[in-house]
């Protein structure tokens, strides 16, 4: 059974008394615009600031953290769509091969959203855990794709210098970014279309 039911999983309750229902502000064009502005800001930060924040040789993937935060707040479909748009913009901004980032972020956003349906995201732990696991999977799949495209790299280098430090940095960024994202999006948890009451 793919759809969570209240009897099997804890229902995700709205924050601060806000209820997501059809036709609420969360479905308005203005809301979509706010999400889009957040994506643009995230991509620009990833291309201008993040490369300079090197810790132990790794650089944070702030766009992935943003995608996961939105997925945790809004659910799998928003997560997938936001992941796709973010990946696409990132590929454009960095003149990378188009499709790789959108593919990976779409999967990460959808999976993050699905995970959020079964946990209490009032706690700071789910964003950190989700980002940590998503970072590892995304970086690993990225490495596999690059390997299939003929680009070789040592496994130990990829694991120790890329995958793990990036995941740790992402997890550390997750809690503050989750709070900021939720504040910016107005505290809503789910789009009306995908709330199962």
């Amino acid at each position, binding site marked *: 059974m793919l*759809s969570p039911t209240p009897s099997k999983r804890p229902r995700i309750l709205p924050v601060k008394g806000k209820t997501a229902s059809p036709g609420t502000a969360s479905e308005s064009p203005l809301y979509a615009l706010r999400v889009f502005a957040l994506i643009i800001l995230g991509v620009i930060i990833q291309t201008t600031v993040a490369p300079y924040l090197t810790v132990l040789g790794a650089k944070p993937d702030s766009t992935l953290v943003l995608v996961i935060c939105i997925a945790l707040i809004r659910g799998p479909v928003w997560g997938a769509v936001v992941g796709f748009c973010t990946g696409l913009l990132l590929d454009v901004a960095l*003149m990378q091969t188009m499709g790789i980032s959108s593919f990976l972020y779409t999967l990460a956003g959808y999976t993050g959203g699905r995970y959020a349906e079964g946990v209490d995201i009032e706690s700071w732990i789910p964003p950190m855990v989700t980002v940590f696991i998503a970072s590892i999977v995304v970086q690993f799949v990225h490495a596999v794709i690059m390997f299939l495209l003929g680009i070789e790299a040592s496994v130990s280098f990829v694991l120790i210098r*890329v995958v793990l430090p990036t995941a740790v940095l992402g997890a550390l960024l997750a809690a503050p970014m989750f709070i900021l994202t939720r504040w910016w999006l107005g505290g809503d948890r789910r789009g009306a279309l995908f709330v199962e009451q």
Partner: protein
Amino acid sequence: MARKTVVKRQAVLAVLLLVSMAMLTVYFREPVGGVLHSTQRGGLVVISPLESGVSTILQPFKDAYAWASGLISASSENERLRQEADILRGEVIALREAADENRRLRDLLDFTNQPSYPQDYRTIPARVIGRSASPWNATITINQGSDAGVTMGQTVVSGKGLVGQISAVTSNSAQVLLIVDHNSHVEAKLQTGSAAGTVVGSVNSLLEMDFVDKNMKVTKNDVVVSSGTGKLFVKGVPIGVVEEAADQEIEYFKRISVSPFVDFGSLEEVLVLVPPAGTSQPLDTEAGS
């Protein structure tokens, strides 16, 4: 209702993944002037002014971060730099003499047909406004594009040495493929003239000089410069120094590790070298695509 929602979700996911995979396939198969490449350049025209603005605003914060992290290694680096300064001071004097001698010898040998780097080249100063944080893609974005005279394939340098080559251009920005990228290949030689080969980048941002004849003598700290062979890069630009030269029985060629002069992590300003009018552009295909 729940079933319908699940189907809807999965349909959205499937469509987005399929579109991504289709883009990936088309991007690899299409030429540089194809739809996706053109769309990408169009998108970059819009994004690059935003990047430039944010980069300028955040510059003080980046400087503060670099200063704070620099403090950690400052004490140990201080001593090393003092020693290095002494050595370099001596080398500067020697190089000045060598430059005078070089000029005289050039006159004698009548090198008029050779491009005399860098005098004949016009330079376009540019600021780094974006860079890839991914180890799979060592590129930077600069704030000068075709409007300023930047074109594909032009060599990009910093005060310390070779940075890379223009790999994509829009009207107001350009992408530079760094020499440490795994797609980068630079025809190079030792400054001593004893060996020549190809300097290639790698995912771990190290340089290797490959295809060097095993019989050639290579020693640590030999300076590696671009050879200009194939006209992909300007001749004579310093790349780095030999870190290690390995001779393995099973290899046809000597493999040399090269430590680059340029610190690619802290690049802020670069110079794009524009060849003299009438000189053909060195590269006419997009690198790395």
